[in-house]
């Protein structure tokens, strides 16, 4: 058992999967340049030494290399495509949505697309075009699995499950959680390290995780917001408010079994999302809760999300944009109001 950062855990998971299965390979921008970065957030740093033929450095061509990843998957490989910033997924949208997600259905079930796509997201002092929370754009695409990891243990286990899954899996990672060191470190990074076992293990792609048990209210969150939710719960516990925190983790499909059990226990729900409110994943979860366990709700669902604006640059506005611990605390108080 070692204490690893998300970046280190992902690197280890990728290497282990590549050792296990020769069909696994990585492609992306700046992922395999000796002396380079190992991707924008150091996840693949040094892997080209052990796997010189399976770490493919691409041109700046997201549509092209995501398309190539889909084609390689169709032809029996298990590619891991790494986009530097989630925002660039828009450039690859056609290949992800029209090809990766649909080829199985269109072919009457004869084609599998075992593809992993990794995308860093989140507001981090870069202005509007390197900062978006992209999950909302993909959770509504049938044929894709969407996951979001918030700690190192999950990152490695989910990555391994994604590689072994026969479907296209889009994996979101948060720039403030990588814990990368040196020149690529992020100001404002949050500690998402965890104990990671030495042996092989996997984390399922369709299960939420109860991070903290509580009786009064359920807070649902993922990525950076899962950490902020846990901090809010600590603060509220001091006042005698007992918050259950669930890391939703699997954004498509959503684990209504785990979430529903919690809601039936607490009767009150706050959903925290870093992206804008309108059309967010939290909207889908809120509606899903009405369908799955609406009769258990003792109060209307409260959402804590960003305003419906592009991500601003100046720190004072960026901090006001992104949900934080005080806003989550306020959300909990609101849902508890009689």
């Amino acid at each position, binding site marked *: 058992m070692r204490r690893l950062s998300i970046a280190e855990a992902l690197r280890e998971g990728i290497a282990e999967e590549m050792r296990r299965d020769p069909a696994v*390979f990585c492609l992306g921008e700046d992922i395999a340049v000796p002396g380079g970065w190992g991707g924008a957030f150091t996840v693949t740093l040094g892997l080209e030494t052990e796997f010189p*033929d*399976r770490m*493919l450095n*691409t*041109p700046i*061509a997201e*549509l*092209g*290399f*995501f*398309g*190539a*990843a*889909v*084609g*390689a*998957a*169709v*032809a*029996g*490989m298990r*590619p891991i495509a790494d986009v530097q910033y989630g925002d660039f997924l828009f450039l690859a949208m*056609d*290949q992800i949505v*029209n*090809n990766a997600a649909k*080829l*199985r*259905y*269109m*072919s*009457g*079930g*004869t*084609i*599998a697309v*075992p593809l992993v796509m990794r995308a860093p997201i989140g507001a981090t002092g870069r202005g509007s075009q390197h900062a978006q929370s992209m999950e909302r754009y993909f959770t509504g695409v*049938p*044929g894709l*699995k969407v996951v979001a990891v918030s700690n190192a243990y999950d990152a490695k286990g989910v990555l391994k499950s994604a590689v072994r*899954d*026969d*479907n296209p899996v889009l994996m979101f990672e948060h720039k403030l959680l990588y814990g990368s060191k040196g020149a690529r470190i992020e100001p404002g990074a949050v500690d998402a390290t965890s104990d990671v076992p030495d042996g092989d293990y996997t984390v399922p792609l369709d299960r939420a995780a109860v991070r903290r048990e509580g009786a009064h209210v359920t807070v649902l969150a993922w990525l950076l917001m899962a950490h902020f939710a846990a901090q809010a719960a600590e603060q509220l516990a001091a006042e005698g408010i007992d918050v259950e925190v669930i890391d939703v983790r699997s954004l498509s499909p959503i684990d209504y079994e785990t979430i529903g059990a919690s809601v039936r226990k607490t009767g009150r729900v706050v959903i925290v999302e870093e992206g804008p409110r309108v059309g967010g994943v939290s909207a889908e979860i809120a509606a899903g809760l009405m369908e799955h366990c609406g009769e258990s709700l003792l109060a209307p669902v409260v959402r804590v999300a960003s305003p419906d604006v592009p991500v601003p640059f100046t720190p004072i506005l960026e901090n006001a944009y992104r949900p934080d611990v005080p806003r989550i605390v306020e959300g909990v108080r609101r849902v508890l109001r009689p």
Partner: protein
Amino acid sequence: MPHPTESLGEHAQHLLDRYPAPFLLGLYERMVVIREFEEGVKFLFLEGSMPGTIHQCQGQEATAVGVCSALEEGDFITSTFRGHGHALAKGLSVESLLFELFGASTGCCKGKGGSMHVGDMDKGMVPGIAIVGGGIPLAAGMALAYKMRKEPRVVACFFGDGAVAEGAFHEGVNLAAIWDLPVVFVCENNLYGASTRVDLVMRNERIAERAATYGIRGQTVDGNDVLAVHQATLTAVDECRHGKGPVLLELLTYRRTGHSRRDPCHYQPQDERDTWLQRDPIDRFGGLLIELGVAAAGALDQIRADVQTRFQDAVVEARHQPLPTLADLTTDVLA
């Protein structure tokens, strides 16, 4: 934009020395199968018994047959929304294609693909990628897989002249070029993207010349000469299989029908249409076969009659195929 007008088969005798008569007759028959399929489907569509939409390839039979006849069994093709001819040339049966067009569960994609997505992985054809240019990076990726596994396979990637304006063309061809991937990029230049003539949207004289900008070989070929297409593809496939990287073939042909259903095609000048009708790939190749004594006119007529009969039998069968059940709506989404 001028197309070459030289008569078919300058080197025909030379080629006949290389290819046995049954092979040549096979090329002819396959082109006739495509023509009769498309004409029959057009009728079925106009009479209202076929659902959906259709994009047809009458007049382009030589590109599909010429390319696919140069591929080995383990080679793959990717296709477009205009894929009936590619499918038939790659070995899908008239029945599996027709059943798919009728939306039957016995179709090549269980009725979930339809006209724009026909294909069969067992026959070496990815279901048609109907987003213009979308199949180009995908083909590069398939070829990447073969190269990484050291399999001697080649991908022939069909697309139209419209696709070269897409970013996907640039990105896919460039990736194949830098990684020396075994892809034959087959551009069927039929002069029209929907209703827009190619010279309205392209300054370049020749699409094949673009190959040079990626550091690969390009070649313009008379796409209505099935032997010329076959020969050019054979050479390109051979280069790919020997690790020399991708090749861009521009096949000059003509879209004789409208873009899709109910398009009367009024934007094509009559003299242009007439000129291309005189270059009909089937008539030209049939004439050559007669000229060289490979077949008599009557034998060619018999091939066409037999193909027509088989097609009509397939239509009768198609009308009685089982449709998917409503439970099939939600299957095949995830593995």
